[in-house]
């Protein structure tokens, strides 16, 4: 596929320019309109609720009530501490993993990728259960070594949050590392730069944007996480727990909305710093770039590879012990193999699994296309509108699932408006799940698109290729691996996300993640583990199928090109 094939000589340059302009604007405004309707509008409703006082008037009474409470201040300090600690650990390990995946020649690379992705495909219950099974007071480690390690609290939460954020950090940094100019590395090598120097002077500056995006995303998802904090955090109270206490514990939705609104602040601040740091241009790709292929370097591959596999061991054991326990008669007391926990009839049985797959595929499909359009449009267009849309696109991660779900009810359960048609529908669930993870997908997409040499699209445009042709022949092929990882990420996250969809499931539209929660709440922990294992199996099978199809398609293209 080359840009030349896209030349359409019948169209006059002026008409072409107009068509391109329309195309660019459509690329921008269709996803942007959806972003407005499915994110900005619900959050606006949430903002309104945060100002709504018990007597029906508007004011800042709720804010002063929350900010003045002792528990809020403590939760705020805890959240920020946890956010910074998790970010430090996760970005460092994420860089290590991304480097291992994209800049080393590793044996079983795809298995490593799968291993670190496990926390994303596992329902949040699995991570909590796994950590308790391993490190709990009655966990395998304490029992085997006769220790008294306390997992509940700061350290347990730090481990859990890091495990969860790690694949996201590795994905974003990976998108930055994926494309590098081999000529630079060759030149550096010729001039005698060591591997370490090349890393410091070439690699790091080149991926700074990706690193900052990853930092932003990890910090944000950590301070909004609820699932880990509830199970493993013990009495270490964070802001998401404050929201839970208000909304679920005491039905004070408006006070919960206040905490949700306040949670946007650290994220806006983090975003501002991230923008400030990326203002200066650096490390753009050259048009004559030669794709970098890691060569043989036994030292680099040996050390980085070993470290990466050691890191990947953590999610594998945590998830593995839960899968193992799901086959045991009565964990941890009677360890005989049984399949009885897989005979699930309660809480909808296995039906919700298929509904979840449909909704997740829709969320990921729509989502990837929207994000590609949005990313391309923002790359091509500038101006204040584009900058505002960029900012809003990075914001959804700052909204805890619980708040997003509530916001969707407020926004779409509106009788007398066309929006009510969406309420209680699968489409709304798909949209909710996509916008919940919009930030991560968007950060990965823009990082990936940044790696495209600007001269390449200029050249394509110069020879008369339309905007659509540039998208088809330059952007899509160049960012295909990024598109795939975004699609998979959205699909996987949508399969297991819980706190938002609690507000949107209906008797006839039950989701797999909610079934897992219901089984666990009903005391069927082993069945919840079994159902989680089934989810992970189905997701893995779907991923392998998609990968296989893609590989075959690429091979056919390559073969036909060679023929």
């Amino acid at each position, binding site marked *: 596929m080359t840009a030349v094939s896209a030349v359409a000589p019948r169209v006059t340059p002026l008409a072409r320019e107009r*068509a391109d302009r329309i195309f660019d604007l459509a690329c921008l405004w269709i996803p942007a309109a959806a972003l407005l309707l499915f994110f900005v509008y619900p959050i606006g409703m949430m903002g309104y609720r945060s100002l709504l006082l018990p007597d029906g008037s508007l004011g800042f009474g709720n804010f002063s009530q929350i900010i003045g409470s002792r528990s809020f201040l403590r939760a705020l300090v805890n959240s920020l501490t946890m956010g910074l600690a998790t970010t430090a650990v996760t970005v460092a390990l994420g860089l290590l993993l991304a480097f291992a995946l994209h800049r080393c020649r590793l044996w079983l690379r795809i298995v490593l990728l799968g291993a670190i992705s496990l926390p994303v495909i596992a329902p949040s219950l699995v991570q909590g259960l796994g950590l308790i099974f391993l490190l709990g007071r009655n966990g395998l480690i304490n029992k085997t070594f006769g220790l008294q390690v306390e997992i509940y609290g700061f350290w347990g939460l730090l481990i859990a949050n890091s495990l969860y954020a790690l694949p996201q950090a590795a994905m974003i940094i990976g998108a930055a590392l994926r494309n590098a100019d081999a000529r630079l590395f060759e030149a550096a090598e010729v001039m005698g730069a060591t591997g370490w120097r090349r890393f410091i002077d070439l690699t790091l500056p080149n991926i700074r944007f990706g690193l900052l995006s990853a930092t932003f995303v990890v910090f944000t998802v950590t301070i909004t996480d609820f699932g880990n904090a509830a199970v493993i955090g013990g009495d270490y109270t964070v802001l998401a727990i404050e929201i839970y206490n208000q909304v679920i514990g005491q039905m004070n939705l408006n006070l919960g909305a206040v905490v949700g609104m306040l949670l946007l602040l650290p994220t806006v601040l983090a975003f501002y710093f991230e923008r400030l740091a990326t203002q200066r241009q650096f490390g753009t790709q050259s048009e004559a770039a030669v794709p970098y292929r890691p060569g043989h370097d036994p030292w680099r591959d040996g050390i980085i590879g070993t470290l990466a596999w050691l890191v990947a061991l953590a999610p594998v054991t945590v998830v593995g012990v839960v899968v193992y326990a799901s086959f045991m008669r009565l964990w941890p007391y009677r360890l005989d193999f049984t399949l009885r926990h897989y005979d699930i009839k309660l809480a909808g049985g296995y039906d919700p699994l298929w509904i979840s797959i449909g909704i997740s595929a829709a969320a990921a499909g729509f989502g990837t296309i929207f994000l590609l359009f949005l990313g391309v449009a923002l790359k091509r267009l500038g101006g204040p509108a584009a900058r505002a849309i960029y900012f809003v696109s990075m914001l959804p991660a700052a909204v805890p699932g619980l708040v997003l779900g509530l916001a969707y009810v407020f926004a779409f359960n509106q009788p007398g408006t066309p929006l009510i048609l969406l309420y209680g529908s699968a489409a709304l669930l*798909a949209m909710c799940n996509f916008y919940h993870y919009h930030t991560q997908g968007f950060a990965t997409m823009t990082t990936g698109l940044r790696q495209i040499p600007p001269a390449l699209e200029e050249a394509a445009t110069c020879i008369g290729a339309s905007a659509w042709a540039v998208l088809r022949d330059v952007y899509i092929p160049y960012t295909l691996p990024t598109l795939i990882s975004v699609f998979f990420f959205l699909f996987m996250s949508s399969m297991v996300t819980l706190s938002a969809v609690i507000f949107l499931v209906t008797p006839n539209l039950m989701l797999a993640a909610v079934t897992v929660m219901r089984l666990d709440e*009903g005391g069927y922990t082993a069945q919840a583990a079994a159902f989680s294992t089934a989810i992970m199996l189905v997701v893995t099978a779907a991923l392998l199928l998609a990968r296989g199809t893609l590989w075959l398609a690429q091979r056919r293209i390559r073969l036909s090109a060679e023929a």
Partner: protein
Amino acid sequence: MLERFKSMLLAGAASMLMFTAGAAQAGTITVYTALEEDEIADYVALAKKDIPDVTVNVLRLSTGDLGARIMAEAGNPQHDVIWGWAVTNMMDPRILALVEPYKVKGSDKLGAAYQAADSKWFAATGYIGAFCVNTERLKQKNLPMPKSWNDLLNPAFKGEIAMPNPVSSGTGYLQIVSILQKMGEEKGWAFLKQLDGNVNQYIKSGSRPCRSARAGEFTVGTSLAFAAIKSIEEGFPLAMVLPSEGAGYELEASALMAASKNKADAKKFLDWTMSPGASGLYAKYKELVTLPGYKPAKAARDAGMPDDPGSILYKMDFAASAVQREAILARWTKEIGR
């Protein structure tokens, strides 16, 4: 190029429409419930047989999740009936504003304590608070079997007790309010503060302390009888202890939504929930059936529930506990909360 783009848009819009929800149908009602998972399937099967012309769609969520959902949808409720939901939540004025009085068939046989004077709610069943004690860990730590709340003050239990957090869990609130009502304000708070010294963790949900105890994470989880009964049935090394001071309990209340668009069928269903047939089935699962003449379920009696649960219950004042909730939780957060 633009043509292709347009057709993509059209296809997108069409699939969105296909995805949208269907409208409510006659003969169909939506029921929100917090009853236990395994019970619901059985109850609904019987309801199908007894009232075949009503299709009952049930959404089950935990007490807290359901409360948030009902409040969030308050502007345009999506359900016709609340079925088996903590009465302390039901008596919240914001919820009472959403429901409509209905004198359910069979309410004349129901004690006054189990229905609202203004007929806004009635309770066919209830659940009881209990300790879940891990017998294996108890033996290993060489601890005496606790029989009462008072026994939990024993310094030997330091770090071995998990309680539900009253701020996030209705069960947690039920526990502290039963202690406060029983011992009186002053003594009650002093007791809770002393107990706090032995509590390892305040957990977010009411049944999780029991699940943690059965997994051997803690020796004692102050939790719910049904969670203990189920765990014992499954074979966990667990004992159910009903505190000798009197066990706290909660009623599972039902009500008719004022906004229901199908009140005829909603009432038919509510009548059914108080029918002898339904109560007979409750007795298969519940430790507390409010109609006179029903013994607790067999599994409950096997786990140590007496034939007349009324004899071990502390007589709760639900109206007071609903009214004082905010003040009690504020004080708990200030003096004990972590």
